């Protein structure tokens, strides 16, 4: 009887470590944890990996960031927010900064962003910019936001920027 107790001790420890004192409770906890993780990462915050240089130096390439999908459930995107914009789905998204809001007029003059003919202070733009252009549709519609990356040292033609409809904005980058 004593032998049995001595022999079963390492096994029972292992059992407790893996399954806990009450395996049934542990199973329930695991299921709850999995469900909570799936819901959180699918509907609340979504991890994304940064690819491409358009948001540098604010966000480095290959860094992992999170998109808060609930950020705009009550409020609308604000100037300066970094947002995720979907393509046809959410497998790949664009990461851009909102620089102009619905109804505003946008243009770039001598590398400076002008909104409604006023120069904007953009502390997140660290590199020199020489862009000079007026977008095809400079005045934004009622559900349109003008988005652009922070790396304005790139050639204007190589930098993806433009009008994002509200429905395409998935959430705010945390």
């Amino acid at each position, binding site marked *: 009887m004593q032998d049995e107790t001595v022999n079963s001790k390492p096994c029972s420890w292992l059992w407790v470590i893996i399954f806990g004192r009450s395996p049934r409770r542990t199973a329930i906890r695991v299921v709850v944890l999995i469900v909570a993780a799936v819901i959180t990462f699918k509907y609340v915050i979504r991890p994304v990996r940064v*690819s*491409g240089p358009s948001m540098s130096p604010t966000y480095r390439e290959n860094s992992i960031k999170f998109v808060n999908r609930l950020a705009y459930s009550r409020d609308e995107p604000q100037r300066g927010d970094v947002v995720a*914009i979907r*393509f*046809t*789905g*959410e*497998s*790949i998204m*664009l990461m*851009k900064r909102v620089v102009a809001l619905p109804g505003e007029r946008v243009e770039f003059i001598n590398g400076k962003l002008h909104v409604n003919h006023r120069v904007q202070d953009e502390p997140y733009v660290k590199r020199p910019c020489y862009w000079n252009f007026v977008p*095809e*549709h400079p005045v934004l*519609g009622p559900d*349109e936001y003008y*988005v652009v990356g922070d790396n304005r040292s790139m050639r204007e*033609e*190589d930098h*993806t*920027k*433009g*009008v*994002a409809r509200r429905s*395409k904005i998935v959430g705010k980058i945390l």
Partner: protein
Amino acid sequence: MKMARRILLVATLIALGVWLWLYFFPNPEKAVRKRIAEIAETASFTGNEGNFKATAQAWQFASLFATNVEIHVNVPEQVFSQNPDHNEIMNAALGARRRLVSLKVEMLDPNILLSRDKKFAFVDVTARATVPGDNFFLVQELKITLRKIGGKWFIQRVETIKTLSRA
């Protein structure tokens, strides 16, 4: 026991019938989805394929297009509309193989809309092209129109879509 066997036999026959029906008459949306995956697969290539395989793959890629296909490209510094024939598409695919060591094409998040008569499918899809081992990648939203000809889906029109635009 006999009854149970009969029920099992009937159930098996029904399952086989459903499987055969779906095999020969697949759901159009599923067939389009499969075709889109096929486009990505045949557009991709690795560096270690021989000349014969490369030509066969390029021809297979070209054969996915209808004979009167329309291609409209509008990306920075490249705006063109073309109606290439199968030989031109094949030559373009072979040209890409000569210029790049390898290429991986993925068609992500396809949104499929079928016409009422189920003869046309309009697909909005995000195409991603990467050169394995290189930092180069290209992401482009596409609108692809497929047409059902002789029970098979062929690419009738390809158009690039500007994600950040009013259109």
